[in-house]
């Protein structure tokens, strides 16, 4: 019964989405107040219906209803409850339902937190979001229905992919999708602005917090995915340039560019067209990522789907969304004003350079990701484009980006002077060069690439600190320094926190790639191996029963200077339902290093209680990689909590209303 209810809810949701996508948009165009007023209730109803469908599917998983095909394919009665819930998005159909669920939640948030916006604008934004939702709901209903019945029902389910049975994977997809889908709000704002012809600073002001929020989720989501790959895949890497990872990274790069160009559009009224184009592109890349992952054109860890009908549908959807947005853009953009004048050297031009670099980086990733597909499709052979390519193309592009992070906050709007900038920044540069250049010596070996990265990281931190002090001094007006510190707007602090996050990230990447040590050894019971100053003593492997797997659990004593720090338990799991054994690495996490043990294979397959091949790693500063991402995201959150957004929510409503009437 529940699956039918869910199915029914989806069908009704589709109808509501179509209504929401058409009437408010037409109403806003014709100034039909009743049709405009339809947008908010429609959005609430749509969210409710999708939540019902989502709840029905979740309930089917919780109750082990194996007469639902999707549940039978992705769950099992032995699966622990949290994973049964997470299994909802463990496959193609459920992932899409999660996609739509997230879209609905964003829509609801827009409806709830946009009281200060003109009604016509809200109607347009919700209308565009309604159309996107309708497209996805149609996709689900036509090609990927999660509620399809399996009659007669299966006795037992096939189980969730063991790779996904992990706490990290319970939260990673929702976070990532929140980010992905969040760019649809920025997109909807951009399209609404184009539709209304009011591409002004107010539009940038309204869409900015939404873009930042989506960016924060995406940052968290990507970091979680990377962290999961690090501890779950068992070979100690944290980023593989896998097409699926790239699919989430490209919108992040464009989203980062968008966050910066929105700042200029809001403050200075410049780059409006460019900002709109970025908003459209960021969302298009989210769609493209969904297409790449969901259509099965790639074969990689995450791609489960292989039905060509789906690929063609998403491709068509992609073409319609991107095509219509670009046509609209081409029609409206020439009428948009240029904004204020600014010099060749100014904060505007620095931010525009940042945008060019980020967009080129994103385009390079796109090129590398799609190239093998295109070459294959043209019958020119089979190619692999992997980490060596991306590393050698991406890293050089990031060097000027990192350098400019330090400069741009000091540049004045409109006109900056290079002489003045270099005067202000010379000591920061000298200290960064000395500290960053010498720091690799502490690690025991000087490596040029590590030194360059550390110089840039120290540069970012030093300039952020300097910029903070300069700003506090200039706004102090006789008050004590600390009091003036507390008066700084949170968006300013958030910016620097995010930039420092970038520096922390760079430190992690540079040190772990420069100085990680690994050993592949054969260990008998009682054997020891030393890496990075730590000694590992192998205590053998025993068998342990999990809820739906049998694990071979190793006991490895971690010692330093003869003292036992703790016992690590790397595992090798065989799931009841899957032939593929899973490696669970054991990691001792630390501020300055991780030590990482993973079990390979028993030397003699018949004797798992005998000697094993074991891989041990010492990874200096590896957690700084994710720590940096967390700082970036926190910076975004800090900026979101800025006073003007709280003020705007409370006080600006009447003002905006009046302004809207004046314009109408």
């Amino acid at each position, binding site marked *: 019964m529940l699956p039918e209810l869910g199915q029914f809810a989806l069908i009704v949701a589709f109808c509501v989405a179509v209504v929401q996508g058409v009437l408010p948009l037409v109403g806003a165009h014709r100034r039909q107040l009743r049709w405009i007023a339809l947008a908010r209730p429609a959005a609430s109803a749509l969210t409710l219906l999708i939540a019902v469908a989502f709840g029905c599917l979740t309930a089917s998983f919780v109750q082990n209803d194996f007469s639902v095909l999707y549940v039978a394919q992705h769950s099992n009665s032995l699966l622990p409850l949290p994973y049964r819930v997470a299994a909802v998005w463990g496959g193609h159909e459920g992932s899409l339902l999660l996609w739509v669920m997230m879209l609905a939640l964003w829509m609801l948030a827009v409806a709830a937190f946009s009281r200060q916006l003109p009604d016509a604008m809200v109607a347009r934004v919700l209308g565009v979001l309604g159309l996107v939702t309708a497209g996805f709901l149609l996709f689900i209903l036509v090609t990927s229905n999660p509620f399809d019945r399996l009659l007669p029902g299966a006795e037992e389910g096939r189980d969730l992919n063991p790779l996904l049975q992990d706490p990290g994977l319970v939260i990673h997809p929702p976070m990532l999708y929140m980010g992905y889908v969040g760019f649809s709000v920025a997109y909807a704002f951009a399209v609404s602005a184009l539709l209304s012809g009011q591409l002004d600073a107010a539009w940038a002001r309204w869409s900015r917090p939404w873009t930042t929020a989506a960016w924060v989720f995406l940052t968290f989501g990507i970091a979680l995915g990377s962290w999961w790959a690090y501890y779950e895949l068992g070979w100690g890497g944290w980023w593989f340039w896998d097409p699926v990872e790239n699919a989430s990274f490209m919108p992040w790069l464009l989203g980062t560019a968008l966050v910066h160009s929105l700042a200029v559009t809001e403050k200075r009224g410049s780059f409006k067209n460019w900002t709109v184009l970025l908003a459209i592109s960021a969302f298009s890349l989210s769609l493209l990522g969904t297409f790449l992952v969901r259509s099965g054109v790639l074969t990689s860890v995450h791609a489960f789907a292989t039905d060509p009908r789906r690929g063609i549908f998403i491709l068509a959807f992609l073409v319609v969304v991107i095509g219509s947005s670009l046509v609209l853009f081409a029609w409206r953009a020439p009428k948009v004003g240029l904004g204020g004048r600014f010099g060749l050297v100014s904060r505007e031009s620095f931010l525009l350079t940042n945008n060019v670099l980020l967009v080129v980086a994103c385009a390079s990733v796109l090129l590398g990701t799609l*190239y093998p597909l295109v070459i294959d499709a043209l019958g020119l052979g089979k190619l*692999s484009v992997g980490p060596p390519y991306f590393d050698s193309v991406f890293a050089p592009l990031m060097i000027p980006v990192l350098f400019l992070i330090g400069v741009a906050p000091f540049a004045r709007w409109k006109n900056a002077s290079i002489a003045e900038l270099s005067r202000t920044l010379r000591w920061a540069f000298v200290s960064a060069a000395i500290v960053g250049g010498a720091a690799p010596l502490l690690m025991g070996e000087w490596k040029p690439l590590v030194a360059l990265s550390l110089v840039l990281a120290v540069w970012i931190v030093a300039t952020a600190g300097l910029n903070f002090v300069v700003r506090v001094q200039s706004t102090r007006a006789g008050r004590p320094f600390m009091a003036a510190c507390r008066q700084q707007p949170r968006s300013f602090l958030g910016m620097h926190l995010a930039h420092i996050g970038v520096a922390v990230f760079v430190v992690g990447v540079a040190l772990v790639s420069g100085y990680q040590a690994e050993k592949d*050894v054969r260990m008998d019971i*009682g054997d020891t191996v030393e890496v990075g100053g730590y000694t590992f003593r192998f205590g053998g492997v025993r068998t342990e029963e999990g809820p739906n797997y049998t694990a071979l659990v190793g006991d490895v004593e971690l010692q330093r200077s003869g003292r036992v720090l703790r016992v690590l338990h790397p595992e090798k799991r065989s799931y009841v339902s899957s032939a593929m054994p899973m490696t669970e690495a054991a990691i001792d996490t630390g501020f300055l290093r991780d030590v990482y043990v993973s079990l390979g294979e028993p030397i003699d397959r018949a004797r798992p209680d005998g000697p094993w091949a074991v891989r041990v790693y010492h990874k200096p500063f590896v957690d700084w990689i994710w720590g940096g991402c967390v700082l970036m995201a926190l910076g975004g959150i800090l900026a979101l909590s800025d006073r003007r957004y709280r003020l*705007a929510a409370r006080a600006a409503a009447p003002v905006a209303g009046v302004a809207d009437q004046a314009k109408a």
Partner: protein
Amino acid sequence: MTPFVWWSSRADRYSWWLALFAVMASLAVFAPARAKEAAPLAADEAVEKRLVAIASELRCLVCQNESLAGSHAELANDLRREIRTMIGQGRSDREILDFMVSRYGDFVLYRPPLKLTTILLWFGPVVLLLGGLAALVAYLRRRNRQVVAAPLSLEEQGEAERLLNMEGEQQ
């Protein structure tokens, strides 16, 4: 430093084996087992370093986008063994990669070779960067000619004042 460090000294292979033998013998005679330094899977660390470097450039053909260095698959283990043998035979990295390509095609290389079909791949980013920067400079110059310091309309002035008032409070 642990007392076992001298065992790991590669220079003295003979004493290493002797020690190993002694430990094995003692293991056989006395229980419980005594600790010893674990034997690396590779006989030679320099060889292993080269192996990892070469294997990271190669794709594990039976895995889903995994390098030969990371993979635990059977075929990957075999191929790593083969590369180790080739290193032992004194072949250069280039020769080993060429051998893998002759056997599995370009697909096995994670760093695609530069040829007619990959020109776009390798030069695309540079062209994009130079093109992007050139377009940026051209745009900024043209823009500066176009933008005249137009006076604000009444409406815009009102809006500007409103915004300034709001921002003035927090800055």
